[in-house]
């Protein structure tokens, strides 16, 4: 066999792989229409099991199983379409992004809003909700109207589910003295309310009544207000799938099966049916121009970019200080301390930043220490990065020739004087490039802080993109903002490296 033929075969194989890839991408990019769903025999529905009950939640008696009235509803709808239902996990506020890629429809307490009606196909309403204010039993808050005046600790801290109608409503109400804090899950939010991090929470009434047993010390404040309906979302280019879902819902409503479902879940089936009968359709919002979009979004994005900068510049110096102390302690500290410091580094390096932030924000309040989200975020970032910085400084300290330490000691300096005036200053110079590059990494890692309710640039983007439907345009703007901030840092890092190279060239000459 000649080399040429072998190459030819390789090339053909390469083409085959590329073709498969393209086919795969094409297949996943095109939204599945009704025929595709039937041919596949599966209706893939998107929801967030972290969102909580009664919608979709992990069955506490069998954690491998999902429960919730929407799980049952998805099964019934799929059966109406002659297929089986398959669950697809997604983050609640980003569920619509699954459409056309990983899911055929989204069924997860998605409230009908004009924005959603504009960007996606919305089914007829299948559930009516109202917003309920909840607080601890010992709270001075006695009615939703009381939110208009500041509480004893300043503005009321009110938790909501990020992207929910409750969040939109509470942020819209400029007449209220509230600080609105967005959570990714309803249980997280109620836990924080229970742990006194929050003063109150606003969520759909079905959620508060479902959780009433679990959080006995919380109570509903006043009557539900500002209601609406849930809708099933499908991709914009799937008119027949959407119509089929509407018809199936219609059959479930008329023959009483939906009412029976709600009664089974203790969701007042008869009242639901009355509300659904009278529910008005939500008209789609008009689509604004790009200039309008940017004019509206830019101030918000810039403010959140400020949060990103605050998190970075507050946490990194702290990370460096802790890291340096840990490195010096591991190399020169007392022997009994060293294993503890090594453990500190391994634990913080070996577990995800997200988990550490969770622990600081959601677990510490249980131990009686409730940190504000920003403090928890800065502390979490600083501790996480201090582990990496300490390893860099350890390497830097080891890279300083042993003769330097001896020379300092021979001059009568103590160990700590030698470290402070001779070893550490040299180590700091040696590690400048990797440390600067870590600063850029931390700068981008600040986006993880959105998991503990801090709204920084990425989170702001995500919220804006979903509420406006301009995912691509806003992504460009956001990416540009990140670049505008990290580019100077890269230049700085290159400058340091350049300076160090010049110095080492000179010393070799």
């Amino acid at each position: 066999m000649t080399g040429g033929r072998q190459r030819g075969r390789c090339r053909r194989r390469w083409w085959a792989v590329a073709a498969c890839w393209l086919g795969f991408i094409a297949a996943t990019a095109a939204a599945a229409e009704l025929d595709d769903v039937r041919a596949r025999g599966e209706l893939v529905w998107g929801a967030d099991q972290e969102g909580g009950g009664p919608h979709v939640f992990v069955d506490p008696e069998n954690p491998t199983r999902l429960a919730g009235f929407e799980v049952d509803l998805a099964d019934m709808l799929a059966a109406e379409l002659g297929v089986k239902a398959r669950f697809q996990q997604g983050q609640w506020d980003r569920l619509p992004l699954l459409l056309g890629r990983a899911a055929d429809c989204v069924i997860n307490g998605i409230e009908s809003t004009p924005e959603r009606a504009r960007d996606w196909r919305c089914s007829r309403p299948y559930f009516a909700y109202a917003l309920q204010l909840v607080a601890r039993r010992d709270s001075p808050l006695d009615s939703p109207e009381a939110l208009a005046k500041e509480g004893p600790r300043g503005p009321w801290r009110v938790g909501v589910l990020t992207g929910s109608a409750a969040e939109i409503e509470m942020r819209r109400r400029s007449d209220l003295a509230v600080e609105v804090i967005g959570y990714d899950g309803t249980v997280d939010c109620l836990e924080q309310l229970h742990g006194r991090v929050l003063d109150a929470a606003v969520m759909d009434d079905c959620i508060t009544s479902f959780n009433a047993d679990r959080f006995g010390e919380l109570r509903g404040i006043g009557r539900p207000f500002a209601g609406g309906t849930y809708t099933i979302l499908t991709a914009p280019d799937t008119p027949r799938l959407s119509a089929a879902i509407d018809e199936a819902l219609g059959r479930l409503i008329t023959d009483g099966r939906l009412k029976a479902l709600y009664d089974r879940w203790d969701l007042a089936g008869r009242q639901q049916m009355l509300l659904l009968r009278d529910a008005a359709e939500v008209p789609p919002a008009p689509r604004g121009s790009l200039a309008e979009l940017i004019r509206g979004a830019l101030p918000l994005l810039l403010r959140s970019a400020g949060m990103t900068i605050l998190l970075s510049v507050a946490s990194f110096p702290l990370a460096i200080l802790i890291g340096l102390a840990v490195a010096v302690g591991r190399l020169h500290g007392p022997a009994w301390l060293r294993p503890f410091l090594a453990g500190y580094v391994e634990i913080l390096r070996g577990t995800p930043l997200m988990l550490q932030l969770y622990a600081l924000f959601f677990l510490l309040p249980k131990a009686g220490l409730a940190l504000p989200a920003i403090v928890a975020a800065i502390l979490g970032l600083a501790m996480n990065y201090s582990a990496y910085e300490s390893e860099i400084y350890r390497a830097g300290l080891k890279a300083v020739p042993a003769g330097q330490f001896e020379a300092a000691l021979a001059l009568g300096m103590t160990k700590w004087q030698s470290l402070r005036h001779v070893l550490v200053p040299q180590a700091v110079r040696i590690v400048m490039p990797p440390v600067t590059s870590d600063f850029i990494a931390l700068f981008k890692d600040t986006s993880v802080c959105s998991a503990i309710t801090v709204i920084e640039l990425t989170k702001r983007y995500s919220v804006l993109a979903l509420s406006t439907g301009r995912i691509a345009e806003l992504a460009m703007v956001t990416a540009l903002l990140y670049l505008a901030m990290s580019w100077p840092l890269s230049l700085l890092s290159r400058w340091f490296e350049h300076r160090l190279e010049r110095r080492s060239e000179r010393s070799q000459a």
Partner: protein
Amino acid sequence: MIEVDSLAAIRSGNRILDAVTLAVAEGTVTTLVGPSGGGKSTLLRCLNGLETFAAGSVTIAGHRLAPGAHSPRDLERVRRDVGMVFQSFNLFPHLSAIDNVTLAPRIVRGVPPSEARSRGLELLDRVGLSRLASARPATLSGGQQQRVAIARSLAMEPRVMLFDEPTSALDPQMSAEVLDVIVELARGGQTMVVVTHDHGFARRAATQVVELVAGRVHRAGPPAEILTAVAR
């Protein structure tokens, strides 16, 4: 000024120093000579506690060092009175020449910065480098670096100066400029111990020559007596 009594040092099972006894009088120059691996540097480093020893004792500038680990306080006291110059200079690369010289007086002795600086400039002048006071070590030649290192040690006003092969890393011309400085110091009455392979220097400056072979004092005496006999 220095009394070394039956000193023994062991490193990883090997006896590096064995029953070494010697005395150095104030204002004299002792050179340690002998083949490589004979224990010269180890002996020198035992004198200021950079290395520990297993048996015997060292008394230097009125301080006594015992076998085994030394306490940090003892070491700091000894080292304030005993300066050391290394083969590889070991200047602090992040500091200018003058800052190298003034660092220890400022932070160890608490000398005010302005006073430390004027005294430092005097010392740099003494080693012929006052015009390079603000130069970084990396921009200086080896000979210049070693002269700054000497000035740095002198700044602590040590009663004894230890030199560990101060010219081994230098070419002959640079060696000469460094040796001139050391000889000048010796003439000024500075007590010093110098480890060297340079017999010319030993003849020129030494009061006493001690030859160490395999960790033992092979011979000791005035240079004229010892150096003629040391085989070349």
